[in-house]
């Protein structure tokens, strides 16, 4: 430690530091107001907010998982399939070990054990992705494209291609319940997960190193960071979040299926990018992703309220949003670089 005393680093205010988040909040408010003006009677109802709060946690969790891997400079195309594989296995266990007529105690034990199994499977699948990316050095987009097929294939084998239904009643009952009659359980699960990942990224050495890894993997290695371990952890965390999303989907539909929510793969990448996560790695945070999740949920809900706009237009809209965000991000980056450098 040098002898010189120096002033502490002056941190800018919260909004000054994260312009991206400020921008997203502004967009959120604008979209919200827009929705309220377009469809005041349908949009501004408590039941609408309740239903939205039950819809976004599943793809929100997937988006956070994808965002984590994008921070390392990679991507995870297998999240949906990890979620389905975990759910399918959990469903199998529930049905086999707690058939109809089991005692409540036995059912509860089996349900909890099945959920733990699902989380374990999610982390395991993520670890496979991480090892392929780090130890074998396969580009993340190819590695997870391969495991996407693998995990889906496994789920198809487990289910023989059919949905598994007839889960113990208590699972869906608790999963779709509201805490204090107002906050859906799934929303609480999402909030806690987002908070944990947020703290991991912004406060811990794991998060700090993840950003470094994403901005320059070679420099990270030279800086003495255990790069391989970090990749595996990031993909494991993504797999874990995917498993939680899978459990939520299972509660909502009261069934598990090998190819549930396939469109979520692209959507979660879109959300991560919209939330300010750089596809090149090293930039982005959880609050941005959460804001993007909410914005997309608003757009999606209000779109549903127009009966004469077909759902077929949805993909066009998402495509335009994605390209638009990428262009805007590019322009902002160029401007910032000009400002900072000479």
């Amino acid at each position, binding site marked *: 430690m040098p002898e010189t005393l*120096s002033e502490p*680093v002056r941190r800018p205010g919260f909004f000054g530091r994260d312009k991206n988040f400020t921008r997203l909040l502004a967009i959120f408010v604008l979209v919200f107001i827009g929705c309220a003006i377009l469809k005041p009677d349908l949009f501004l109802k408590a039941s609408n907010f309740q239903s939205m709060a039950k819809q976004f946690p599943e793809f929100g969790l997937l988006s956070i998982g994808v965002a984590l891997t994008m921070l390392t400079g990679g991507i995870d195309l297998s999240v949906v399939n990890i979620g389905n594989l975990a759910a399918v296995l959990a469903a199998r266990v529930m049905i086999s070990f707690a058939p109809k007529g089991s005692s409540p105690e036995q059912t509860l034990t089996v349900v909890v054990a099945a959920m733990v199994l699902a989380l374990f499977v999610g982390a395991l699948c993520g670890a496979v992705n991480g090892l392929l990316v780090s130890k074998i050095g396969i580009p993340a987009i190819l590695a997870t494209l391969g495991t996407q097929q693998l995990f889906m294939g496994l789920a198809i084998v487990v289910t023989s291609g059919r949905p598994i239904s007839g889960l113990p009643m208590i699972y869906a009952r608790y999963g779709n319940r509201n805490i204090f009659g107002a906050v859906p359980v799934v929303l609480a699960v999402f909030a806690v997960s987002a908070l944990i990942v947020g703290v991991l990224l912004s406060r811990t*050495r794991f998060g700090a190193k993840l950003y470094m890894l994403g901005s320059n993997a070679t420099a990270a290695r030279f800086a*003495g960071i255990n790069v391989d371990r970090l990749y595996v952890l990031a993909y494991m965390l993504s797999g874990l979040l995917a498993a939680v999303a899978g459990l939520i989907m299972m509660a909502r539909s009261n069934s598990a299926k090998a190819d549930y929510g396939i469109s979520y793969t692209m959507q979660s990448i879109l959300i991560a990018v919209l939330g300010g996560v750089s596809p090149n790695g090293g930039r982005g945070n959880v609050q941005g992703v959460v804001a993007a999740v909410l914005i997309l949920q608003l757009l999606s809900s209000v779109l549903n309220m127009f009966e004469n706009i077909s759902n077929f237009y949805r993909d066009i809209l998402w495509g335009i949003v994605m390209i638009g965000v990428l262009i805007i991000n590019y322009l902002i980056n160029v401007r910032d670089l*000009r400002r900072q*450098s000479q």
Partner: protein
Amino acid sequence: MTENILEARDVRKSFGGVKALKGVSMSIRKGEIHCLAGENGCGKSTLIKIVSGFYEPDAGEITINGTTYDRITTAQAIREGVQVIYQDLSVFPNLTVMENLAINHQLMAGGTLVNWSGIRRTAEAAAALTGLSVDMTELVENLSLADKQLIAISRALLSNAKLIIMDEPTTALAKKEVSRLFGIIKRLQAAGISILFVSHKLDEVFEISERFTIFRSGENVVTGDTGGLDDRKFAYYMTGREFAEERFAAGAVPGEPVLETRALTLENGFYDVSLTLRKGEILGITGLLGSGRSELAKALVGYVPADSGQILLNGLPVRIASVVDAVRHGVACVPEDRLTEGLFLIQSILDNIAVSRWDALSNRFGVIRRREVEREAAAWIRSLSVATRDPLLPVQTLSGGNQQKVVLARWLANDLKALILNGPTVGVDIGAKYDIHRIIRGLAGRGLAVLVISDDLPEVMSLCNRVLVMRSGRLAGELAVKDSTTEELAELSMRE
């Protein structure tokens, strides 16, 4: 009376709030070799980019071949015969030599089909202009840097260049390659082509140019004939400070061995390297590009571990299979290329320094004690005088010298036994080089064992107590600095 090929008058350019050029003027005569010098960030590159049409100036005018422009486009600049050889050379690594040489020419000629025999003729003519002798069908990525440079120059000549601007062309060249380049530059001059040679190495300015211009912080300080220039003046013009060249004196009595290697070997890298690095000494390793010096540095910190042989720390054999192992044993490395290997360019200056300290400065849940980290990093920024207004800015906003200080600072807070510096002052201006040398001497003075790997012979001579020379992967000799000269060292490293 001599005519000017290029005149720039009162050129101004700002980026955001930063004034890169505060009204500079310079002129280059026809057929002249003119040297533009200045520290990193003085505005040299900005002026080049304005002259070649890449940037639009805020004010001022440019006259080329008698035509005056307020702003010039890249197409106009090329038509006027201005060609820039950038440091990255802008060659296409995945194409052959032939295609690289002839591609612009072919594109200009138009036509839908590729005329291969025409391409070969054009390419051979281009190669003849610079004496480039490589296989025309070889992929450019397999060539040496010096040959890639010749390709870029040959290509420029094909486009009827009248003024060739070379942006620090010698940074990555070995001595022999530099003299070949200088030969070519002289030939171009004889053919009536003007050269603007951008460099901050004094010996090169002396050797090659007739007149020079020096920029400092966006203003021109002086223009004159190279004849009237000496070491002192040059450094003073560039930095505005006076420096005294000094040789290593402190710590001349080295302590016990810290890092030793026994018959360390890496296939296709280096062979049978046994060396001893002592406490408090600065040991230099030099050698040409490809002599195995960089591979050795990477092996010592476990980035690319050696195949066989032993590494000993404080007399005990240790296994260093990764950089993580090395750091745990107290051995760290400042890599050769700070942009691709050393820095996290988009991350803050603060994080770039703190990255090696997060493990030590976090609680058992892995939560970083942020205030402590910030205080420590801020103290290093101060004590190494890293010039920045805000440590939270991305490290890419710093000049080369300041960036290098950041990479150094990263390791200083750790309790190291040995520090390996690979090319510690490559691409760094004189002022920062002086600072960095002072820092390194200070570290050795406090008992750190320092290994400096560098092909900058004057640097090795002024910084180290002892120098090892590597040639074709083997240790070829050792010199004690206090009773040898730079010439002896050069002879030893370049001997066939």
